[in-house]
């Protein structure tokens, strides 16, 4: 009798596996590649400012305060969808917002920001995409939460939604606030 049940049990196991697969894919982007940089130091970079190309900003300049590095480009349609969320949901949180204009013509980026508004505290340009490669960027938008010590704490691949800000980003920011402040 028990041997008769084996095919049924095998079938139930298969159904469970497929159901798990469907559930998993509902909540996970299939093309999303988890970043191995989380918990590690943000890569070194020295990049010119969009509005003052003679001035450069490096990783060391941004130490001491947590910030979100938002990778965008004027060529990127999803960045347009994300833009109001940056302005109305992320910015009110009070976190420093640094724009990384990725693989883009600075003139196009300036026009784009003029048209939609500039939510960033500073915008740096990575025209040839080298800094993006160092950060493991492979699409836009992508966002990195970097803490006061320059460690990447969280990465969002794709656009932020108000739900994701509430469920993923806010707990990360709360954890940063709860940490004892170190003098860099």
């Amino acid at each position, binding site marked *: 009798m028990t041997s008769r049940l084996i095919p049924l049990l095998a079938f139930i196991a298969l159904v469970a596996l497929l159901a798990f697969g469907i559930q998993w894919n509902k909540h996970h982007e299939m*093309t999303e*590649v988890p970043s191995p*940089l989380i918990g590690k130091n943000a890569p070194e970079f020295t990049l010119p400012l969009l509005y003052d190309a003679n001035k450069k900003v490096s990783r060391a300049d941004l130490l001491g305060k947590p910030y979100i590095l938002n990778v965008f480009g004027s060529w990127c349609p999803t960045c347009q969808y994300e833009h109001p969320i940056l302005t109305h949901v992320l910015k009110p949180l009070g976190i420093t917002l640094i724009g990384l204009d990725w693989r883009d013509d600075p003139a196009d980026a300036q026009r784009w920001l003029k048209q939609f508004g500039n939510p960033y505290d500073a915008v740096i340009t990575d025209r*040839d995409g080298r800094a993006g490669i160092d*950060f493991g960027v*492979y699409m836009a938008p992508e966002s990195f939460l970097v803490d006061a010590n320059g460690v990447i704490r969280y990465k969002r691949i794709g656009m932020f939604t108000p739900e994701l800000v509430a469920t993923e980003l806010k707990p990360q920011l709360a954890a940063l606030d709860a940490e004892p402040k170190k003098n860099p």
Partner: protein
Amino acid sequence: MSRFIVSLAIALSMWLTAHTAFAIDPLPFKDRAEEVRFQNLTRELRCLVCQNQNLADSEAELAGELRRQVFDMMQSGKSDAEIKQYLVARYNDFVLYDPPVKPGTWLLWFAPGVLVLIGAIVIVNILRKRTRQPVAVVSSEEDW
């Protein structure tokens, strides 16, 4: 006449393949060996944009930049392993078409073998039982 058409077709197809072969940005290789090394290396690396293509084949802009990065690292004397390590540190093992055997990939590497083994054991068990049992005589009630 038909011969002319055939040769025209061959010439056209050659031109088309030549065209696609040069669609990927040309890089200044110093010799053939370096080019072969580059091609073998980029064939083993995944394009992150179109994830079922390798770096050698992809025409995505990011793939072009990553090819450039691989080329530059080759020029600066980095080994294949160092170049792969550089990319894995940024983009995960996912960039490798040949994932390394480690605890995180055991399921990937060994699950097929284990499943085949389980299947083989099940089949062997069934066959043994059948040879031990006499062939059941089909009764007339069941034979409808």
